[in-house]
């Protein structure tokens, strides 16, 4: 019988290696806060974190960065006055800033088997300096590559034992695409439901993308 539920946070995080690239979902709601705490506790070092934004002085990403386990952050937005901003200023954190839509598309590309793509976004900005561009139908485009995760940390509202998920309201955000883009997708779900409780046409993230699920009641 397929059963992707794991009994503890330690089980959920088992096996994450030093140097892993970890995709962490969320945009306000939808952030897998418990799993991000578990990642800090698990202790893998020299992590690359891929997340929408670098956060502030407190909260899941700030707390994770404060452990010193993260070597690089790939995101669309970092405030100078934040843990991430100060670590960067001190040379403790490498940053790769990616426009938010390009970030989403690069993650989706990793999940969909797209090995590279051209986008006009940022093509004529300093983010394109030294990088490959190409004119397509008169529009300057920038070549972007997929962002693969070794691990994805995902938040869900409901999950069944196959790993089928729903996400509540705008807590969906990066969750479905990050789940697609990682070798090991780990989910924290507010609710556990019986198989079949999520109608097939209402599944937001299909179990094919999910390896482990931890019940974290709200």
């Amino acid at each position, binding site marked *: 019988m397929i059963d992707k539920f794991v009994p503890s946070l330690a089980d959920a995080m088992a096996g994450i290696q030093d140097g892993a690239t970890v995709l962490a979902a969320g945009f306000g709601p939808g952030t897998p806060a418990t799993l991000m705490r578990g990642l800090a506790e698990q202790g893998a070092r020299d992590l690359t974190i891929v997340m929408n934004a670098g956060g502030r002085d407190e909260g899941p990403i700030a707390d994770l960065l404060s452990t010193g386990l993260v070597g690089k952050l790939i995101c669309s937005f970092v405030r100078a006055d934040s843990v991430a901003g100060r670590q960067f200023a001190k040379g403790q954190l490498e940053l790769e800033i990616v426009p938010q839509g390009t970030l989403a598309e690069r993650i989706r590309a990793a999940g969909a088997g797209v090995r590279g793509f051209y986008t006009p976004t940022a093509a004529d900005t300093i983010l394109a300096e030294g990088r490959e561009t190409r004119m397509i139908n008169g529009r300057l485009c920038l070549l972007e590559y997929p962002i693969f995760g070794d691990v994805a940390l995902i938040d869900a509202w409901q999950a069944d034992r196959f790993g089928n998920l729903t996400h509540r*309201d705008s807590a969906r955000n*990066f969750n479905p695409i990050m789940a697609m883009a990682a070798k090991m997708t780990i989910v924290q779900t507010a609710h556990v439901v019986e198989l079949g409780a999520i109608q097939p046409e209402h599944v937001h993230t299909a179990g094919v993308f999910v390896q482990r699920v931890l019940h974290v009641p709200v």
Partner: protein
Amino acid sequence: MEFQPLDRDGIAARIARDIPEGWFVNLGIGIPTKVSDFVQDREVIFHAENGVIGIGPAPTEANINPYLVNAGVQHITLITGAALVHHADSFAIARGGHLDLCVLGAFEVAENGDIANWARSDHEPTKQVGGAMDLAVGAQRLWVAMEHTNKRGGGSRIRTACSYPLTAKGVVKRVYTDLAVLEVTPRGFAVLDMIPGMTREALRARTEATLIWR
């Protein structure tokens, strides 16, 4: 004659006047966010980068849904007929040309339609890009909402060329400031409207770029 610059609500209300019913619109952070408050007599559908299509009025304290925010991570409501999608689908809307309009704030706009709204230096230690580059490039039309001049020093933000790092080149269609409404044309900014009491001379004095009247 005296003139009274529009306040931030005034700029937002002026923009709202020009949005027809049925448009799909993304509003950036700052003045643009306020635009939706002034179109409630028409069905205009507001999109947020985090996957919301159909943002409604701000919730009362008692009605906050913690799972529902806009691109500024402020609590929102949904209109009847809203739809929710994931982040890649949401940016497909923005990048695929499906938004009739995006309204962004800016530091500077140039007469060739360049916009600078994310950094004040090429070498800024941290970079607050967010979704602005995607929206600026992807929307059917980009309007900018901003003050005409800098608060400090009074220098014009309506430029012959941007001095700050660009968000995108040649994409701005209109600029709505506290003094005027300007349209980007091949010959310079065409002045579509000025606030009461404003004169051509006074506007020229506050504008670094070429202004034309048609």
